């Protein structure tokens, strides 16, 4: 929609900001002028140290494999989360009986700290891929669920009415009105869910793993390698940001009909 020049500028702006931040960090950590160092590089690391660690991770240790494993787990959890979240959201919206009865149970479940579930998760799902997918799902699901459910409550009632007059079936109403109406809510949820499914997969790997970013994190932490810890955290952050940007691309396709708001 926007000409490509402005896109180009945007990227320059982002990059400039990132560079400034990295330079400041490097300087504070003493990487530029050693006498001027305010941060202890052990816990604050520094861009150059992280860079070196990233080099090792990517070119000597094939961290790509870990990335793909974690991504796969997160993705599976996310897809399950979307499907089940939308489905249950619809069920709750359709049935007053179900929703009023079960609502408190849903928020109770969502309040359970996932890392504390580890022993039970091992018992239920083992420490194979399923425990990771389960944890990714358990974080992604609730956002999508609540957003679907509450999104439906804000649908324009007249649009529902026109469907009823046309004698549309429940399924048609769902497909033609409800799903498109909650798309903006679902996408709002997706920005969070994508990140959460990643976090969930990694927490799952904390339960015990042979591969994956979580596995690498356990190592770095167990062996006191703070640079590597930073590098890995950075890798996860970039994964998350990339996925969310992807989601936004898809979103803009779906929401093309919506006029832009300027404040």
């Amino acid at each position, binding site marked *: 929609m926007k000409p490509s020049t402005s896109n180009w500028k945007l990227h320059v702006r982002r990059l400039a900001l990132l560079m400034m931040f990295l330079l400041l960090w490097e300087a504070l950590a003493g990487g530029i002028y050693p006498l001027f160092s305010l941060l*202890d590089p*052990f*816990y604050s690391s520094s861009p150059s140290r992280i860079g070196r*660690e990233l080099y*090792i991770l990517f070119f000597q*240790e094939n961290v790509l494999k870990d990335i793909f494993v974690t991504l796969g787990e997160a993705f599976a959890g996310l897809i399950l989360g979307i499907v089940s979240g939308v489905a249950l959201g619809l069920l709750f919206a359709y049935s007053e009986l179900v929703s009023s009865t079960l609502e408190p149970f849903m928020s109770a479940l969502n309040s359970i700290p996932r890392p504390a579930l*580890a*022993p039970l998760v*091992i*018992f239920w799902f*083992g*420490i*194979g891929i399923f425990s990771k997918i389960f944890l990714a799902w358990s974080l992604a699901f609730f956002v999508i669920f609540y957003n679907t459910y509450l999104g439906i409550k804000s649908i324009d009632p007249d649009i529902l009415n026109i469907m009823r007059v046309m004698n549309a079936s429940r399924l048609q109403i769902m497909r033609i009105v409800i799903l498109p109406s909650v798309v903006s809510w679902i996408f709002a949820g997706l920005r969070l869910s994508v990140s959460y499914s990643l976090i969930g997969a990694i927490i799952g790997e*904390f*339960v*015990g*793993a*042979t591969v994956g970013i979580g*596995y690498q994190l*356990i*190592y*770095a*932490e*167990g*062996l*006191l*390698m*703070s*640079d*590597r*810890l930073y590098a890995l955290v950075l890798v996860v952050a970039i994964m998350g940001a990339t996925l969310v940007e992807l989601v936004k691309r898809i979103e803009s396709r779906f929401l093309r009909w919506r006029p832009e708001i300027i404040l």
Partner: protein
Amino acid sequence: YVPKEETKYSVKIGNVPAITYAPTYVAIALFMDDVGINATYMAFPSGTKAREALITGEIDFASLSTVHVPIARLKDRPLKIIMSLHSREIFSLMVRSELRDVVKEVKDLKGLRLGFSAPGAGSWAFAVYFLKKAGLEPGKDVEMVAVGELSTMYTALKTGKVDAVIAWDPLTTQLMESGEAYALIDLYDPKQHVELLGEEAMSQVLVTREDFISNNPDIVERVVKAHRMALEFIKKEDARKVAEVLQPYFKGMEIALLEKVVNRIKEAIPEDGSLSESAYYADLVPLIEVGALEKSVSFEEAVDWRFVGRRP
């Protein structure tokens, strides 16, 4: 060298990444193949998680702190120690260097903060034990702070959030090397070990489940064999060579530091992994004394000595 075994078995072995488990790493790196075992290694962020995975059958063997076995047995989870991997207790009581002039012995910790990993873990039990021995009441005279695993422990100590920690390697070595902290208690010092726990302890052990032993005695036999070969290897070869074998498992760690740590723990690597009753109880006493264990679990119950033999 033992000739390669004909039939291969696949097993899963897990632990928390730590150099005190060097025998397991060396065994996986060099000897499992020779005994006909296809070993998959699995990392856990804490011993409790590795223990849970073992109990539920997700892994077949774990190198663990001894404490986990009696805790599990008291809950009717039949884990068995099948081999000793370390004959010293690994914990050291490290104090921030700034306090060198103030804290000269354990009872000087009164009014300060002591960090340990997590309640229920070995470091907690020994923290309490050390304090009680010095006549201090944990929680009252000394504030007890759960600070998690090594990196948070290090951060907490360095930033002065705690004054002392119950540390293990590589943190202990690193703190001593850098001079950021000094050891008030160092159980790698034979004298102190004798004083607090006796001649020998059994701090790190190879563990499996009872049902696994009865169903697969052959596999257990082979895994133990590989471990014994590893013990021998570590004892015999010089630290540099051992460090080189370990390095693939400790990527990103300086080889020099690795070598230093290997040197430090070498002393504690047992000859043959045989299971000593007195060493077992030496480790158990503090746990019972501090209440981490409700009651004692007998040597006979916790240990299966058929594979490495027992000593008094």
